[in-house]
């Protein structure tokens, strides 16, 4: 399988290792510390929720973990590669093959159909028969009849299902989700999170999910809390995980 080539030979190493991560941004004359001394390790196949209030730094942390941005201090090691040592293009390549994303605002390309949106990352990663794979995934998320519809013709929940299909299509090792149900009503959100968890189990993907939805968080193996840029793992959750 294609996926095999992507697996680090040292498959016993954690999927994600974060050491003393600090992130600052400069705002006009001030520097703002958004994240401070974040340290965590996530093993392969684990599902992890990061919970916190709006503005606590969740999105920033997720971006750093996924290599979309580089931290001011500290290291992020994703599947054995230290992200801050990679060039932007190397990080892009890493993402193409091993990382999937689900966003709060879906982020589908409005010009493409559902099918094409799912095919896009497969094509970018240079995978074989992208169309066949994309069809399978869309059928799996229950949108087999909506292949040729564009995002505008789909409801929010349907769009997020397309996004989930897209995220799992390239069989990533790790999936990052930023408030995947944040823009959806309760029931739709429930359906979407069911789908997300199910696919995650089926594919054995490592899942890192940011949410302020306690129910969704509770369905993950581990939970972290973040407040004012400081990450902590409550005892109870830790025990549950072990």
């Amino acid at each position, binding site marked *: 399988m294609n996926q095999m080539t992507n697996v680090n030979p040292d498959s016993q190493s954690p999927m994600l290792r974060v050491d003393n991560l600090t992130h600052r941004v400069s705002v006009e004359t001030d520097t703002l510390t958004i994240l401070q001394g974040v340290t965590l390790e996530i093993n392969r196949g684990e599902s992890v929720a990061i919970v916190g209030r709006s503005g606590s730094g969740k*999105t*920033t942390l*997720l*971006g750093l973990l996924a290599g*979309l*941005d580089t931290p001011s201090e500290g290291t992020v090691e994703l599947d054995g590669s230290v992200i801050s040592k990679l060039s*932007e*293009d190397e*990080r*892009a*390549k*890493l*993402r*193409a*093959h091993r*990382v999937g*994303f689900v*966003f709060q605002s879906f*982020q589908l*390309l409005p*010009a*493409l159909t559902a099918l*094409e*949106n799912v*095919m*896009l*990352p497969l*094509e*970018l*990663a240079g995978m074989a028969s*992208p*169309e066949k794979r994309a069809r399978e995934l869309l059928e799996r998320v229950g949108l087999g009849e909506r292949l040729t519809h564009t995002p505008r013709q789909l409801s929010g929940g349907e769009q997020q299902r397309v996004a989930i299909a897209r995220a799992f299509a390239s069989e990533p090792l790790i999936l990052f989700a*930023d408030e995947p149900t944040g823009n959806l009503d309760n029931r739709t959100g429930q359906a979407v999170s069911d789908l997300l968890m199910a696919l995650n189990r089926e594919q054995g993907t490592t899942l890192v999910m940011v949410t302020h939805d306690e129910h969704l968080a509770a369905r993950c193996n581990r939970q972290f809390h973040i407040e004012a840029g400081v990450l902590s793992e409550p005892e109870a959750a830790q025990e549950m995980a072990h």
Partner: protein
Amino acid sequence: MAAAKKLMSVRRDWRERDVRVVLAALIIAVATVATIALFASQLQRTLVSSASSFLAADRQLEAENGRPIPDAWLQEAADQGLKTGRMVEFSTMVFGDENFQLVSVKAVSNEYPLRGDIEIQRNPTGTRELVNQGPGPGEVWINPRLLRLLDLEVGESLEVGNLNLTVSGLLIREPDGGFRLSALAPRVMMHVDDVAATGVIQEGSRVEYVYLFAGDEAALESYYQWLEPRLEPSHEWAGVRDGETFSRSLERAERFLLLGGSLAVLLAAVAVAVASRQYALSQRDTVALLKTLGLSGAGIGGLYLKRLALWGVTGIVGGLLVAMPLYWLLIHMLSQVLERPVEFQLDPSALVPALLTALVSLFAFAYPPVRRLRNVPAMRVLRSQPGETGREALPDMIIAIVAVFGLVWMYAGELALVVSLLGGLALLLGALGLVGWLLVATLRKVRGGGNAWRLALVGLYRHRRASLSQIAVFAMTLMLAATLILVRTSLLTDWQAQLPDDAPNHFLINIAPEAVEDVDSFWQERGQPLDKLYPMVRGRLTELNGQPVKETVSKDENVNALNRELNLTWMSALPDDNEIVEGAWFGENQKEGVSVEAELAGKLGLSLGDELTFTIGSEKVTEAVTSIRTVQWDSMKPNFYMAFPPEGGLTEMPATWITSFYLPKDKKDALNEFSRQFPTVSVLEIDHVIERIQEIVRQVTQAIEAILALILAAALVVMAAVVSATLQDRQREGALLRTLGGRQRLLVRSTMLEFALLGGFAGVLGVVAAEAAVWALQFRMFEGTFQWHWHVVLPIPIVSAVVLALFGRWQLRPVLSVSPMLLLRRLE
């Protein structure tokens, strides 16, 4: 890569507003530049050939010594691949049934005319037709006036010397009838082979043998090399340059076209720049997503580069497709003016500027913002990132300005044009900086409220960045449009001034000194007063500072004035349209000196004080140059290379008098009476020529207007591009205002006011900058005198204010018609 490919397809692109603007701008640029360049190159060729038709050939050789040239000379011309023709010109009496009349005969060979056409009528009421051969042996064509003068009808016979010739046509216009003062009217045209049989030409008769040559320039040149050593002083070799009296007007038209094209390029470049920047901004989210999904920076760059190339191809192909019918239309117009078919010829070299324009617009204007897309951070997919500050765009702008002005320079070939336009733009941007500063300083304190004016001002302040850049682009656009309108206006005014409806259309030549008064009163009585009368002495410039002039003037300067007799005159006052450029005009009682026409003085390298010797008949006259003056050759009045003071060097010389005057069509019969009363005075009728020039000017004006329309269309595209750039922001604001309880009317009023202020501001700035640019341009390019044209450009700020206000109103439409709730959702 089906999905990725689709993402980049032009067909999909076309659905995006910004791409449409880029493509439209490119197409308009290519179309305008291609049309103008094609037409200008065609016009150039046509000008040369219509100038040639003034000679009925490319070159003429005149023998004024009354003897034909050796046959070997013609043989040599034929051997060198030139076409040749012959004519003989002489004056004689012809006889009708009862009357007789002095006429000027032109006897032509079968080849005449080598260039141009003869216009004739088969009978007095028939239609005019163009033919390219003179009358056959035994036939004669005559000036229509002769019918009346001689009581003749077409088909009857005319006695020329010993020969009876049948009148088979009426001569309306001969191609080389133009401005040759030696031509004697009325004209009779016959076949050259009949001349001997008439017995009119005797030893010592005044007769001119004229030979026509046509062929390619190299062959003509090499023939002249061969011929020159064999020529005698009485031989005169003339090229087209002498016939271009009226082509000057058209040269200016051509420059106008080039200017128009340059401005079109500038406008299109601005449109491309604005639209592609807008496009790039709108692509940032897509790029961030693609990066997140794993596309590398190089991959992004490649994707957009491919797309740009597709735009380029689309722009070029589309532009050329639009250019063809336009060019065809202009050619059609031109051929109507010239009354002969003009070839639809695609000069490939004329397409080069269009291609360059497309490439430069693409790579200097569209590419930079698109190239920067690869720097969009992937993180944007999670949270919108600080946008561009505009500082990154600065080097791009410099490159773009250099590129586009380089393009204009290459294209119009006028540094003056580039400098004028740049100066105008610099002025404009300086003024804009000031306005921006004032805007910030004064509007900061204005607070919103229930008042439309306040809201408008607050709006301007809140959008000051966008407002300023919009004003900049509008002002630039309006400046370029205003420049064009101004130049067009002054061009047309100049032409009208130069060729008013009552421009002189007849010359009277060869008036004996003692007849001057009678001639003058003849026309005075008939209500057609003569312009000023000038004495005229024919003489040749033979020595310069005591040296034979042919030796002192360098060989490569082919100075035609030296090859033939010049018209010399004397006068006390400088004609109104002449201007002294060096030295001083003759003083009150001055009797020495000569005033030389500036262009000739330049060619001969004359300066004040140089001694000129003229040979007049067997006499020699030597005078020092006391002034150099410019002459309006296209004024249709007698003009002279050399002017002496009254009672100066020429007084003893045999002079005849010359004048020009305006004679309306319906009074032409008076010419018959005049010819009867003054048989020795020659009447040169140039009314047909003038009519033609006026017609050409009219048509060229139309062409100019068409181009102007094209360019204003380009300007509109620019404006649309700029305004639509802020469309979404404004709609969102409007929706918010309504949600917060703003009344519709207030919203409409304040928005319209804001846009009106914007448009008015930009209009005023643009007009001022345009006046400055035109002021600079006029001196260098159009030789005009500068006038302020407030009345012409005043409407521009007003129109732009109104148009923008309406545009703003139009933009608000969706905001007003839908519930605010729905709107906010849709605009999310």
